[in-house]
């Protein structure tokens, strides 16, 4: 074989004095593909940016070698590197919404990409752009060309970006989590597009992802990173089926799609009476959006009920109606068999005590000016529960229960990681000893390993305290691990409902099928963990 397309050798990168990537080496042959995986902050993006020479100019220092067709891109001057940009080296960014200039039309930005083909005629370039737009499956290419970025959906924008990147036929695509900002159902289509174009055009791929399943499904080789070092590397099949390092094994175990029955044993399958119930709830916002349309479901005590559906399907609205944060236009909300509607403020307060909410985003749901213990004590203070000592005791208990060590208690949220913050939010919801905890996508802002930690905490609490969970998620694999029953929402309507086992293995509706299909399946020899539901 000739020289590799990309060769990374002993790459180290430091931001200021902190070294975040150490001695990383790997290779991609011409037309080959490689996935970089690892938890958040492990240095994946930093490596991608070193390859692209897009590291922040003044803060980062890189050493080692990054060879593209044998040329060390780190040592050549920008003047010589610039011709490689776009033409040899294409970049597909993570978040399509922020990757195009919001104040310029798509067309004018596309012209910049088309110019890389060497075409001099503006109209010819325009035709080339329209071609590629059609090729990536954008329905109305002309309209897209004249649009501003904010007028397109995330999926469309990512298609635009991919189209523009492949237009000059680069030899290597660097894709940094190209779908993590997109909707579940869209993710799969975009990945399909990317890998399809790749094989068709013979482009090499450096794919960055935190999702082991995606990596396994899409690439030939995998490099597992941890704290900036290569923990393990090798052909996909090898790393995936027989991980050698403990870290890679953990990582694998944490991916819900690969371990659907992880928590099965912990479950108490003895459903009690309905603890929560929505009956024919309809909600239309002042803007005319009908977020909920005749939605009914019930949650038996001591079980976990999941609400799933794509973005905007009304999951959060259902939760807010349940908690009395929004008033439904029609229908009833029952908590422990009693109607919430029309209750006085004081009564509502009493109900809420037993009904706690954990928000999706741990970065915004905690007051950044408060310390941990105060945050967790707040509901006790507000409801005037116990004396000082009693409260202290309860706070300590709750914080310990979610696994937060005592040295963290006097910190403020800004000094915590995302996973730790979400634990604080859970502790805060538990300190009142509620019966029901509503979890609105509690882990979607966190990476898999942290997600696994949190789910573990939740499962253990349910087991020990007999809590009832209403669990909102768009991740069917996670739902499968965690929930007992599920309601599938689409455009505010209930599409399908029933026990998780049934709905996910044998979906009846097209929409549910599409959702199930979106779960990544590594194209690998079947192995026991995967067998149960495929």
């Amino acid at each position: 074989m000739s020289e590799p397309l990309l060769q990374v050798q002993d790459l180290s990168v430091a931001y200021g004095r902190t070294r975040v990537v150490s001695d990383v080496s790997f290779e991609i042959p011409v037309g080959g593909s490689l996935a970089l995986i690892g938890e958040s902050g492990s240095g994946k993006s930093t490596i991608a940016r070193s390859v692209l020479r897009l590291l922040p100019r003044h803060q980062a220092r890189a050493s080692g070698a990054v060879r593209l067709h044998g040329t060390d891109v780190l040592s050549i001057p920008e003047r010589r590197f610039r011709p490689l940009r776009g033409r040899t080296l294409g970049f597909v960014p993570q978040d399509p919404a922020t990757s195009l200039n919001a104040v310029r039309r798509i067309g004018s930005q596309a012209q910049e990409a088309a110019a890389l083909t060497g075409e001099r005629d503006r109209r010819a370039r325009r035709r080339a752009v329209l071609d590629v737009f059609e090729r990536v499956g954008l329905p109305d290419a002309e309209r897209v060309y004249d649009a501003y970025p904010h007028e397109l959906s995330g999926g469309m924008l990512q298609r635009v970006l991919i189209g523009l990147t492949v237009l000059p036929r680069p030899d290597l695509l660097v894709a940094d989590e190209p779908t993590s900002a997109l909707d579940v159902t869209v993710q799969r289509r975009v990945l399909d597009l990317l890998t399809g174009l790749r094989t068709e055009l013979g482009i090499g791929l450096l794919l960055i992802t935190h999702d082991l399943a995606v990596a396994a499904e899409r690439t030939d080789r995998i490099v597992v990173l941890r704290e900036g070092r290569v923990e393990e590397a090798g052909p996909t099949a090898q790393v995936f089926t027989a991980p050698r390092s403990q870290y890679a094994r953990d990582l694998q175990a944490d991916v819900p799609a690969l371990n659907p029955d992880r928590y099965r044993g912990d479950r108490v399958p003895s459903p009690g009476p309905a603890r929560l119930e929505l009956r024919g709830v309809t909600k239309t916002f002042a803007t005319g959006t009908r977020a909920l349309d005749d939605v009914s479901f019930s949650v038996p005590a001591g079980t976990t009920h999941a609400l799933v559906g794509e973005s905007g399907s009304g999951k959060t609205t259902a939760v807010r109606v349940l908690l009395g944060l929004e008033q439904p236009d029609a229908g009833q909300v029952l908590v422990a068999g009693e109607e919430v509607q029309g209750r006085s403020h004081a009564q509502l307060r009493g109900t809420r005590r037993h009904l706690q909410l954990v928000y999706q985003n741990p970065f915004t749901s905690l007051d950044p000016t408060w310390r941990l213990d105060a945050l967790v004590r707040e509901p006790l203070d507000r409801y005037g529960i116990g004396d000082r000592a009693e409260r202290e005791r309860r706070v300590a208990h709750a914080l310990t229960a979610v696994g937060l060590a005592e040295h963290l208690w006097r910190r403020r949220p800004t000094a915590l990681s995302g996973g730790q913050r979400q634990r604080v939010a859970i502790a805060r919801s538990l300190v009142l000893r509620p019966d029901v905890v509503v979890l609105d996508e509690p882990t979607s802002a966190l990476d898999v390993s942290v997600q696994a930690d949190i789910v573990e905490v939740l499962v253990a609490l349910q087991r020990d305290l007999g809590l009832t969970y209403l669990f909102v998620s768009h991740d069917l694999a996670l739902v499968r691990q965690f929930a007992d029953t599920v309601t599938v929402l689409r455009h505010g309507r209930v599409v399908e409902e029933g026990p998780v086992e049934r709905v996910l293995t044998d979906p009846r509706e097209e929409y549910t099928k599409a959702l199930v299909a979106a779960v990544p399946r590594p194209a690998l020899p079947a192995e026991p963990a995967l067998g149960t539901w495929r």
Partner: protein
Amino acid sequence: MRGYPGFAARRVGQAVVVVLLAYVATFVVISVLPGDPVTNTLRNPENGFTEDQIARIVSYYGLDRPVPVQLWESLSRFLTGDLGVSLRSNRPVSESLLEVLPSTLTLAGAALVVAVVLAAAIAVGTQVLPRGAGQGVLRSLPSLFLSVPNFVIGLVLIHVFALQLSLFRIIEPDSAWATTFAAVALGIPVSAQLAEVLIAGLDHESRQEYAAVARSRGLGRGRLLLRHLLRPSSLPVVTVLALTVGELLGGALITETIFGRAGVGSLVESSVTTQDLPVLQAVVSLAAVVFVVVNLVADLVYPLLDPRVRTPRSTVVPREELSPA
């Protein structure tokens, strides 16, 4: 009323209310003190006027009527466009104002140009210059500009350029050079604010993903700056610019005094010391009108610059951002 016409009508209505309130507020503030240039001169014991003489003259100016009546009369005159007569110079206020307005507008306009050019130069410099001493100096310039009392800037400019270098004559404050330097003195603090916003904007934009994407397509630094970064970064500048118009008028007070320009600022200065209410009311209303109009225009122009607000705002509640896992 819904939609744009409703919005515009509301905005204009608010603007009118603001101007009227400003007019009344000036009246109230100035009327707190029982005194005016007329009675002040008349009551000076050195003149020895009789009570009868004083009363007759005071009644000519209407100053003997109860304050609410005076306010009402002046307000109804104002609504018909009559700004009244100066108590100090006995000239119609509109005449005095029209006489000095061109000078102030020239100054403020020139200062605005100076401010924008200076701010743009500094901000672009911070992006183009290599990191190091040069950039450090550029980045601290706005802070420095904001820390120097503007009368000191004015005095220094005059001493250096008019007296040492004889670039302009103090007695010809309306000459091109004199206006330029006055504009520099007035524009420097404003440029500092603009530069701060612009630098922050450029820094912010250059950290955005789209900048990286554009660079990954081989765009050079200069083209990136011109074609991509400058436009979105200057959006907040428009808003700040509109807000600083008032500052230019306020700052003109000192600058005009120092440079010996006869303008609105120096008119205010002499009117304030004599409590010449009609002039002050007129100037305040004028300033309020200018401010309100400029901000109205800024609001109307903004959508032309930012396509995101051009389409009716998306009505979705602000979503929790999905941070990348």
